[in-house]
């Protein structure tokens, strides 16, 4: 009875005039900030914290939550239109979204992203509402060995992200691993590859690498090939309407990834990034035409977009029911809670049910708002591509610089951004894929920490990595994802012969 009462109370908060208004303010601000290349939910929440001073806590938090998932919702825009992912969760969206926009179907890509984000968001809110308190157990079920296995599974994606040469993909991934080791090693406190500068002690921020390898490299490419007429088609927006086939294509990925993304989001540390990557590769693996992926596939946009939005709601499980922030973004969210005098934790649902359930209930409205706001706006947003090429390129550069500068207000990061831009351009010139680099960079750091934490605890005994059902099954799935494609290829060869 208690939970139901609480839920009713939550809906009262969310559906009050004030609640609806602040959800609206939250999601609008969130999407707008999220759409800027380089600015993601962390900046969006940080910008909004001062606004909440003195507000009623439940209303304020409803708004902050709106800012958070609004920013994730809007984050796909810059990935699709400009190949400039603002947050790690939308890197995978760029794989197929940007080719689609280049093909002159930007409107369609944005519509797919909006609809799958909405689906992922809504389905996961239902799951959140039904299982939030119960899922708290799931959130803490992953220790270092399980995380190691999960990251390992994520890394198997490298083989499926390679276009053409697998060797080149592996070289690219190795470079990503090397970049991930830069900075202070958490387990010993030793600084690695910092060349004596304090600027590198914290390592390289994800955004520097993502914007460098994707946005700046793309800009270099466009400037250098500016006389190439075949690239000019990009300014077409294309038809917004999705055909019946498109919707049919999307159905599968959206259903599967809503659940998978949510569960991965519940795990602290995994979050939207891993959810979107794993979503992308599972869909590629089970697709009938995997060769379409990477070239502007409908499923390739729908899968990561559903997964990252579902994971965003999932991330509220450990935050609300345990007081554990699962990612940098939820850590800032936690800060926002504390500023308002609310301590998220196991007692929140009893002590402040109106806050706990208010946030969850408001997500329903928030997601509907996002869909209603975004769909009609797509033609206008996509008009960005109609801006003349020189202006667009300058804008991308300026936004990338602002985004990187706002991480820690250091000019050092700007030089790093340029270096990675050049690296990205050279990689592209010699057809090394950038996706394995960024995947290895994101997962490599976490995987190394998880492995070493596990081994410290076990005193160096490797058996800890296969000591429980979760990690064993994750490792088996990883092994299968290596072996199955090989068998498939073998079979194909045999039948072709």
């Amino acid at each position: 009875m208690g939970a139901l009462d609480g839920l009713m109370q939550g809906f009262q908060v969310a559906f009050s005039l004030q609640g609806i208004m602040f959800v609206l303010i939250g999601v609008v601000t969130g999407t707008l900030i999220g759409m800027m290349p380089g600015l993601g939910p962390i900046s969006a929440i940080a910008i909004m914290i001062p606004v909440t001073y003195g507000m009623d806590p439940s209303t304020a938090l409803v708004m902050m939550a709106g800012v958070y998932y609004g920013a994730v919702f809007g984050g796909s825009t810059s990935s699709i239109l400009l190949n400039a992912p603002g947050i790690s969760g939308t890197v995978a969206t760029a794989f197929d979204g940007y080719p689609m926009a280049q093909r002159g179907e930007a409107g369609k890509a944005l519509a797919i992203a909006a609809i799958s984000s909405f689906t992922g968001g809504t389905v996961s809110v239902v799951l959140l509402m039904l299982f939030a308190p119960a899922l708290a157990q799931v959130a803490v079920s992953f220790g270092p060995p399980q995380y190691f296995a999960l990251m390992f599974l994520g890394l198997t994606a490298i083989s499926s992200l390679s276009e053409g040469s697998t060797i080149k993909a592996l070289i690219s991934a190795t470079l990503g691993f090397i970049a991930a080791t830069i900075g202070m090693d958490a387990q010993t406190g030793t600084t690695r590859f910092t060349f004596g500068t304090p600027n590198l002690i914290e390592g390289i921020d994800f955004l520097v690498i993502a914007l460098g390898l994707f946005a700046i490299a793309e800009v270099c490419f466009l400037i250098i090939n500016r006389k190439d007429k075949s690239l000019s088609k990009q300014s077409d927006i294309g038809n917004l309407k999705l055909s019946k086939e498109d919707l049919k294509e999307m159905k599968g990925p959206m259903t599967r990834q809503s659940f998978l993304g949510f569960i991965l989001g519940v795990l602290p540390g995994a979050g939207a990034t891993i959810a979107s990557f794993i979503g992308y590769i599972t869909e590629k693996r089970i697709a009938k035409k995997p060769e379409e992926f990477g070239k502007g596939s409908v499923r390739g946009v729908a899968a990561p977009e559903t997964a990252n939005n579902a994971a965003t709601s999932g991330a509220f499980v450990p935050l609300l029911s345990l007081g554990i922030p699962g990612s940098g973004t939820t850590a800032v969210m936690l800060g926002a809670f504390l500023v308002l005098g609310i301590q998220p934790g196991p007692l929140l649902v009893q002590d402040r049910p109106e806050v706990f359930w208010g946030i969850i209930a408001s997500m329903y409205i928030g997601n509907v708002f996002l869909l209603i706001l975004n769909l009609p706006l797509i033609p206008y947003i996509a008009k960005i591509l109609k801006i003349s090429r020189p202006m667009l390129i300058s804008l991308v550069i300026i936004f990338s610089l602002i985004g990187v500068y706002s991480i820690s207000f250091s000019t050092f990061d700007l030089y790093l951004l340029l270096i990675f831009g050049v690296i990205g351009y050279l990689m592209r010139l010699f057809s090394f894929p950038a996706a394995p680099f960024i995947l290895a960079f994101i997962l490599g750091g976490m995987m190394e920490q998880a492995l070493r934490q596990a081994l410290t605890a076990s005193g160096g005994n490797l058996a800890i990595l296969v000591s429980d059902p979760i990690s064993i099954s994750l490792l088996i799935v990883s092994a299968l994802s290596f072996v199955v494609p090989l068998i498939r290829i073998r079979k194909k060869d045999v039948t072709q012969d």
Partner: protein
Amino acid sequence: MYNLINFMWFIFLLPLKQNILKTVTKPFLSFTMKLMKDYNLKGRDIYMKKLWMMAILSLLVFVVACGDQSADSEADSGEGGGDWEPEQNIEIVAPSGAGGGWDTTARSVGKIMEEEGIVDTDIGVVNKPGGGGAVGWSYINSTNDPHNLFVSSPPLIFVPLNGQSDLSYEDFTPLSNMIADYGAFAVSEDAEWDNLNDLFDDMKEDPSSVTVVGASSPGSMDHMQFVKIAKAAGVDIQEIKYVSEQEGGALTQILNGSADVYSTGVAETVEQVKAGKIKVLGVTSEERLDGDVLSDFETAKEQGIDASFVNWRGFFGPKDMDPAAVAYYEEKFKEVSDSDKFAELRDQYGWDEMYMNSEEYQEFLKEQNDELGSLLEELGLGQ
């Protein structure tokens, strides 16, 4: 300011050739064209009016752009007098991201200074994350302006001792210490230990049977507060297994049994203890703490282990500050520390009052540095 100028230059220097120039100048050109058209159509008056508006606008822009610089140059001329007053806005650097302990302290102290009228100038809090504080410290060191202060705590001792920063506490002027916070050692609710002695008895037998987890890297706060207490209890500190979990998953590791002991700040444990998920074996304060759950935590001293650890937090300025400026800040920080607003804040966050003036603070830091330095050396971590 310095960074902002740098940033602007960076944008200007981009080799974008004429494209960007064209896009920037285009609106101005079209505006002028329109003006000329107006002149022909509507006569000279309107033209003059618009011209005046443009002149005033550009003057305004110019004044705003120069405002900051003139403030900078005034600051240089004002040093060295008997009495010292800030001549521009005071900037407090929190050498970490938004939301952490340093950030909270800096923002709340700044807010009280402004709201209570303790300081007449505006106070801005700037986050300079990176290097466990090292980036913020090198910023203060390079600007060397008595209007730029920073907030710090034991990492100012640990980070240089671990060889992660060339700047140490000796490169700055301690102004005032404000508060004390304490560490807590927590275990899962169903753990076999009920107090620190149970735990340390097991660890004396086999130190590697217990895994300690904390949010800081080895040789920094969460690790060393545990080492300090464990050493006093007679544990072989070189054998202690410490896992660093910096992504916020330390508590998770306690709840799922991946690690045994959680070394953290007292405030972080309260909610989980209330919910019955973890129990606190001991805290590092000298005396019992106040507060509804806090007062149930036994100190290490009460359990017969003669050691304590303070997470002090205070404010620093650049090296070789004008003594008059030091005196000025001492007085202002003392006023904050004595205010009711700050007392309220201390209660809210569970901090203790621990005011020290510049001289006491300097002495205290030296003691801390010697003591923790020898402990790190024993662990083989110090440099």
